[in-house]
């Protein structure tokens, strides 16, 4: 089942998503990247209905990139979250809504702080210090309640993430074997090994 986590720390946001692409009982791919880089300082992990996910994620990516090219400034994370939320709110009120859940992590260069947003297919958005989607969230959120520190350095943040991943591996019947982990901070986005 599709699982994603994210958490903030001192000047960074870590976004992690599983890399399994499965249909019914078959794992078609074990190295799928479900985290889109929307800009130099913006990451979005997506999950939900197959097909809808990539379609919507690409739509968001291209529109945010268009804004940046047209207007010379990149969209700040709060503005990007609002735009995405509005797109999903319009989608849910249409004849065939997108069934996609997102975790939007970004670094706001004008305010010098990390932002994380939990967004679901209904168009709800909340800014949070940590978040998760999927069945894995049932295990991860309690661990993050206990161990998350918003001022932790990156190594500690990654250690907390490691706890969540291990717990899901231990307790979920069909747990993902691999995760892709990306970090966004003042220097931009990069992938890290976990």
């Amino acid at each position: 089942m599709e699982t994603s986590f994210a958490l903030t720390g001192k000047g960074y946001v870590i976004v992690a998503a599983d890399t399994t692409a499965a249909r019914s009982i078959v794992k078609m791919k074990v190295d799928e990247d479900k985290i889109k880089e929307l800009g130099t300082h913006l990451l979005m992990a997506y999950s939900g209905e197959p097909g809808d996910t990539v379609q919507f994620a690409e739509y968001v990516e291209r529109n945010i990139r268009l804004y940046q090219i047209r207007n010379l400034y990149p969209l700040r994370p709060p503005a990007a979250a609002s735009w995405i939320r509005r797109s999903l709110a319009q989608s849910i009120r249409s004849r065939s809504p997108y069934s996609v859940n997102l975790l939007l992590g970004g670094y706001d260069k004008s305010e010098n702080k990390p932002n994380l947003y939990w967004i679901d297919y209904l168009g709800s958005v909340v800014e949070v210090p940590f978040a998760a989607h999927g069945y894995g969230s049932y295990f991860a959120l309690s661990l993050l309640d206990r161990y998350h520190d918003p001022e932790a350095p990156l190594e500690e943040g990654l250690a907390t993430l490691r706890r969540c991943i291990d717990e899901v591996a231990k307790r979920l019947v069909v747990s993902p074997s691999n995760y892709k982990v990306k970090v966004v901070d003042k220097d931009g986005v990069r992938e890290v090994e976990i």
Partner: protein
Amino acid sequence: MPSAAGLYMRQRQLPRRAREAYASVTSTDNTSISEAIMARRYDSRTTIFSPEGRLYQIEYAMEAISHAGTVLGVLAKDGVVLAAEKRVTGKLLDLSSAKVGGGYGGSGEKMFLLNSNVIGGVAGITSDANSLVNYARTVAQQHLLQYNDDIPVELLAQRLCDLKQGYTQYGGLRPFGVSILYAGYDPHYRFQLYHSDPSGNYSGWKATCVGANNGTAQSLLKQEYKDDISVEQAIGLVLRVMSKTMDSPTLGSEKLEFAVLTYDEANKQPKAKIYRPSEIDALLVAEGLAKKDDDTEMKS
């Protein structure tokens, strides 16, 4: 035959199409067109180039603006200052809504709040200006709806310029006879001052002037402007330049509109202030520029 100077030539009566084209061009200060302007084949429609490669309607629009009340803007390191000379004044003018508390100052002729982070100063044909101000406000709110964020100042200027440019290329409609100075703040580039003209072109300025006597004002600004001035110094500079370039001999709230855009550190929000007449008079007194004048009826 066209004169060497190019644009104007006397003629007894304008051809019908030219008369129609000029029926809509009037300026705010009621100077009817004293020189009869010969309408050539190429200048009664905006969508046509002249053989010399010029768009006459746009040039004529800028000419209309050069007869309108001056608008002056100066960028400081902690704010932007705008001042404007009003042309619609007089004892019988009812400005009571501007003087009473509530809302913001300004008589609705030169200075407008376009968004909570942008003030616009307009020069030119007032009705065109009102239409553009309304458009700018709509654009700013649409941006706020989509992104939950104040529109960046340059983006607002661009949107208005896109509209103005459209009127020079298609539709067969005349251009807007308005120049606008945008004074604004956004987190990307902090304080900014832009000027847009009827052609749909815009540029960013540290200090600039549009409308009547803008050449004089511009050279005065060039001499006196320093890069790191504060808002207080900018206010003084603006008022001094206005007093030297305004047509009327007195500098008072009857003839002057004034606005300042700063950033409120406590609330972390831009603060747009269009001064009320009483506040303008108080400011002039503080700067030592107020003149005692028996004619001024609008004492508050």
